[in-house]
């Protein structure tokens, strides 16, 4: 069965975005970008909720993105992408499609089909939904060395506690720490 993974940046107190989707606190250096680019090279399918999709789509296809992050933008634009949304009818971004309906059921079905692994970027609501349904195989959490007072917590709205198993840690020069987990069996 193919894997469903989560890759996200959070503050030390668990916010993945500040008020109004603010992510200006991300402290990405060359090393983190290389890590993201290497992950994109693996050609996993990228998954988003509508809000993250719209944010990503408004940035990655632009000339500015191509100039600032040439490798990442190439990878982002080329990768196969799926948006989970009931309000978005069509995804205009290159190589994207929309899946509507019951996201959990659709994901269960998707995981049983053959194909590439999938990775959710950002997208707090579907991360919570799939985590609660026990559908996530790996969690890669990049912890930025910052605390902010307000925003949207990662795993927002989860009703039941999840116990995970630490599988790896990595420290970047910027002070960002990558913690990798899988569900505790």
């Amino acid at each position, binding site marked *: 069965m193919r894997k469903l993974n989560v890759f996200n940046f959070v503050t030390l107190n668990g916010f993945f975005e500040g008020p109004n989707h603010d992510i200006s606190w991300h402290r990405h250096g060359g090393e983190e970008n290389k890590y993201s680019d290497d992950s994109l090279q693996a050609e996993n399918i990228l998954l988003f909720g509508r809000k993250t999709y719209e944010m990503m789509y408004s940035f990655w296809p632009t000339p500015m993105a191509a100039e600032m992050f040439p490798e990442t933008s190439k990878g982002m634009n080329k990768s196969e992408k799926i948006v989970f949304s009931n309000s978005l009818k069509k995804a205009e971004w290159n190589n994207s499609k929309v899946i509507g309906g019951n996201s959990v059921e659709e994901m269960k079905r998707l995981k049983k089909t053959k194909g590439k692994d999938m990775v959710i970027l950002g997208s707090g609501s579907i991360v919570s939904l799939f985590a609660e349904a026990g559908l996530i195989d790996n969690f890669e959490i990049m912890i930025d060395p910052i605390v902010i*007072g*307000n925003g949207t917590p990662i795993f927002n709205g989860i009703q039941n506690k999840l116990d995970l198993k630490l599988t790896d840690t990595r420290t970047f020069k910027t002070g960002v*720490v990558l913690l990798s987990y899988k569900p505790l069996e």
Partner: protein
Amino acid sequence: MRKVIFAINVTIDGYADHTSVIADDELHGYFTGLLQNTDVEIFGRNTYNLMYPYWHNVAMNQSETEVTNEFARTFDSIPKIVFSTTLKSIEWNNTTLLRSNLQEEIVKLKQQPGKGISIGSISIASQLTQLGLIDEYHFVVHPIVAGKERRLFERLENSSQLELIETQKLSSGVVILQYKKM
């Protein structure tokens, strides 16, 4: 000048909830070491009410594992300051009750000679972070997503950038991330 240190158990999603953490010997050993490098612990009424009945009892009866008992003895004997406007009196040994002037007290303590000053309460840590008075943060990250409980640094007015100084992994999958104020 003495260092102000805030060490806190936290879940991956940023909740500071003592009930959903892995409280094993290794964790208690870590906190014992931390307390041994400090000579005053500061908290508020909630933390006092939570800590005193349990840890004083363990310190007296030595009812846990040797490592946990040692933590209890260290915690029990360290001088403590409780900030509260509502507590009538304090029963814990070595403990002073103060009504107000957190900022002044901390600034005064920092200037006195001695070991570190440990902060043991989330609300006090938030106020001191806002004032820029915490020198070192130890986030003890448990491999748990809690989904609810009390968020660390909720309603902090300004964001606070930190500098990573050390990481440490415990066998339970707990990762201790140490930072200093930038």
